[in-house]
């Protein structure tokens, strides 16, 4: 029965090779996290590698939540050194990090990302308010608004709007069709929390509900309709742009850097009267923008070669400043004060406290 022996022998060999690499030291920096920060982190990683001649950091696109999970697993050398995030670390995540021994974390604000609601260049520009976005995309809307009957205040009904003109007379008379990101995406979180909830909040009885029943408020104000007027498109923003070119009556939702690269094909709608421009996002007047962060595991400093140098490259004015190369890639830089603060925090390993 030589074959049986062979099988055993082979299994042993495979296990032996895998065991042999257990104690291998890591040569390059290991970065995980948000797909929105990915395009920026990769540019910094590449520049760092070329400039210093050290191995280029490996950047994985796992999503903000997935990145935190890997990051907070522990202090072992196999865990990531940095995680990128398109939102601030949550309390639960911070506690989990602490529970697993990851106690020294430094937070760095990279800058901001605007979220565009765009359509084809050949259609008229949409002029939306947050309220319009809420009424077009929410799963449930107030009956008093839908039927223009004040006696029905407080009652919520399934979103009856099918055309933009039903929401606002100034909007075109075309069917509501919006292509957007799936729930796993940070862009989707921002759409729900900043745009849809932002419009929802404008109703006084919703603000009352927020105080009385926060859970119900969140459910009503953040849930996006699923009756076909909002279509989930997966994480590929280039695909959404292609659809917008082919169909002039649909709107698409994606990050500002994609809008900038495709300004000959698509245009961003203005929101609350503010066009989506670099300046408007930077000064906060364009309402749908979110902060981008990365988090450093301070226990890995000094253990992983080049980690401090990579961080220094990232918080350099030539990188994330107003004239930095990340701006060419579509990043909206934060204010000078913030940049100074976070650059100092990053270099001094200031621990994050929540």
């Amino acid at each position, binding site marked *: *029965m*030589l*074959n*049986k022996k*062979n*099988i055993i022998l*082979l*299994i042993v060999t*495979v*296990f032996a*090779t*895998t*065991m042999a*690499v*257990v*104690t*291998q030291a*890591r*040569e*390059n920096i*290991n970065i*995980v996290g948000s*797909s929105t920060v*990915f*395009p920026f*982190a*990769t*540019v910094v*990683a*590449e*520049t760092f*590698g*070329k*400039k210093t*001649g050290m*191995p*280029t950091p*490996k*950047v*994985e*696109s796992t999503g903000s939540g997935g990145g935190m999970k890997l990051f907070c697993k522990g202090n072992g050398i*196999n865990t990531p050194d940095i995680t990128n995030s398109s939102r601030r670390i949550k309390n639960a995540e911070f506690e989990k990090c602490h529970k697993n021994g990851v106690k020294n974390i430094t937070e760095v604000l990279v800058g901001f990302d605007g979220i565009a609601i765009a359509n084809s*260049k050949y259609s008229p520009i949409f002029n939306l308010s947050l309220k319009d976005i809420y009424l077009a995309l929410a799963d449930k809307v107030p009956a008093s608004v839908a039927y223009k009957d004040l006696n029905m205040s407080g009652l919520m009904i399934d979103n009856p709007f099918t055309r933009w003109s039903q929401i606002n007379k100034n909007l075109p008379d075309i069917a509501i069709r919006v292509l957007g990101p799936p729930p796993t995406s940070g862009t989707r979180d921002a759409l729900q929390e900043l745009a849809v909830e932002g419009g929802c909040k404008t109703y006084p009885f919703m603000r009352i509900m927020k105080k009385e029943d926060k859970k119900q408020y969140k459910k009503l104000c953040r849930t996006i309709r699923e009756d076909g007027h909002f279509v989930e498109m997966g*994480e*590929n*923003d*280039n695909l959404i742009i292609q659809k917008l070119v082919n169909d002039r009556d649909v709107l698409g939702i994606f*990050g500002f*850097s*994609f809008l*900038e*690269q*495709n*300004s*000959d094909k698509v245009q961003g709608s203005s929101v609350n009267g503010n066009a989506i421009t670099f300046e408007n996002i930077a000064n906060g007047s364009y309402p749908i923008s979110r902060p981008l962060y990365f988090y450093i595991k301070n226990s890995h400093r000094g253990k992983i070669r080049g980690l401090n140098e990579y961080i220094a490259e990232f918080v350099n004015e030539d990188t994330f400043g107003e*004239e930095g*190369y990340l701006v*060419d*890639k*579509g990043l909206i830089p934060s204010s000078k004060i913030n940049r100074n603060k976070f650059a100092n925090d990053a270099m001094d390993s200031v621990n994050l406290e929540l």
Partner: protein
Amino acid sequence: MNNIEIVQKGLKKRYAKERRFKAYGVFSIIISLSFLAFLLFDIALKAAPAFTQTYIKLDIDFSHKVLRINEKSSYTKDELFELPYHKLPSKSLYQLFPGIENRKQKKALRKLVSSGVRYNLRNMVIKNSKLIGTSKSIWVLADDDIDSLVKGLIDRNIPEADRRVKDFQIAWIDKLQLENRVESRFNINFFTSGDSREPEQAGILGALKGSLYTMLITLLLSFPIGVAAAVYLEEFAHKNNWLVDMIEVNINNLAAVPSIVFGILGLAVYINLFGVPRSAPLAGGLVLGLMTLPIIIITTRAAIKSVPPSIREAALGLGASKMQVIIHHVLPLSMPGILTGSIIGMAQALGETAPLLMIGMVAFVADIPQGFFDPSTVLPVQIYIWSDSPERSFIALTSAAIIMLLVFLFLMNLLAIILRKKFETRW
């Protein structure tokens, strides 16, 4: 009416039916071929711009003053590494277009050439330090936007505000073209470098090598184990034994398990338990090997079954042992079938991304992997990452990467056909 007449009467109808039946088949073939042709044509058309690259001729002044280094007879590598090389292309461009004071325009001027040029110049100087103090005409990579303009992918007629390249930049390029300083060359970079976030510097070699290493591990794991398991199950295992039956059913089920499940298994067992480095071809190959294993077992068993019993009986009759029968006769005769099955399994593994997501191979890796333990990606992952990048020039690179993946697959299939022909025996 006799029988003949009845048959004759329906004959015309039956012939027509048969002709229609054949026509359906031909129609189906035409449909599938036209789909394939359309797909290939579309990819080739989109990929075409990726195979050429625009270069700009600059007169680079490597003087000591510009490089801020004192005259010496020899320099150490560290000294040369740190010099301000970014000034070299900028200075040359400022000389070509004097009188530009506007800060924004100055920045645009510097960005005519790729951001990687300074590192290329650094490597040139480190290789040959005699360059310092001289000046030389050098063809350097153009930026991706400029490259698109030269290739005619940017429409000059649309309003300036909607264009990535502004009117003044177009005027610069036109001037450079008149002076014969712009040239389109074969994009050798694409085949010799790893991934980059700048489309003009991005190459496929890293992903290609990653795929190669991963496939090697997959083959080494799944082929011997798969063939040995199949031989045992087919030749030695007792029939009608409940344990053997159960193993058989489970192998068939495993072949149909969605690939992401193997990724989760790989993460739990290989990475978390055995500590295989994340994102390494070793981890990827082991996971894909598990995925390929049931396919190889099933096809190998089918191939062994198809060896005529007369061959086995003749060998046994001449006094061969069971092992001799298998090694001398059954395995060589079933080899073509085994190889075909293995290659199909490997081809499937080559195109997988889902299980690799779990073990961290869906990542930006700029350095070219040098072995089984270095972080790397594979071809389909590279396609995915490029297709999701904002820069417009990545569209062409995506299609070019698809072509490379198809070429890889084609070579694997070719190998299978050659091996099959070599081992094929007729009886």
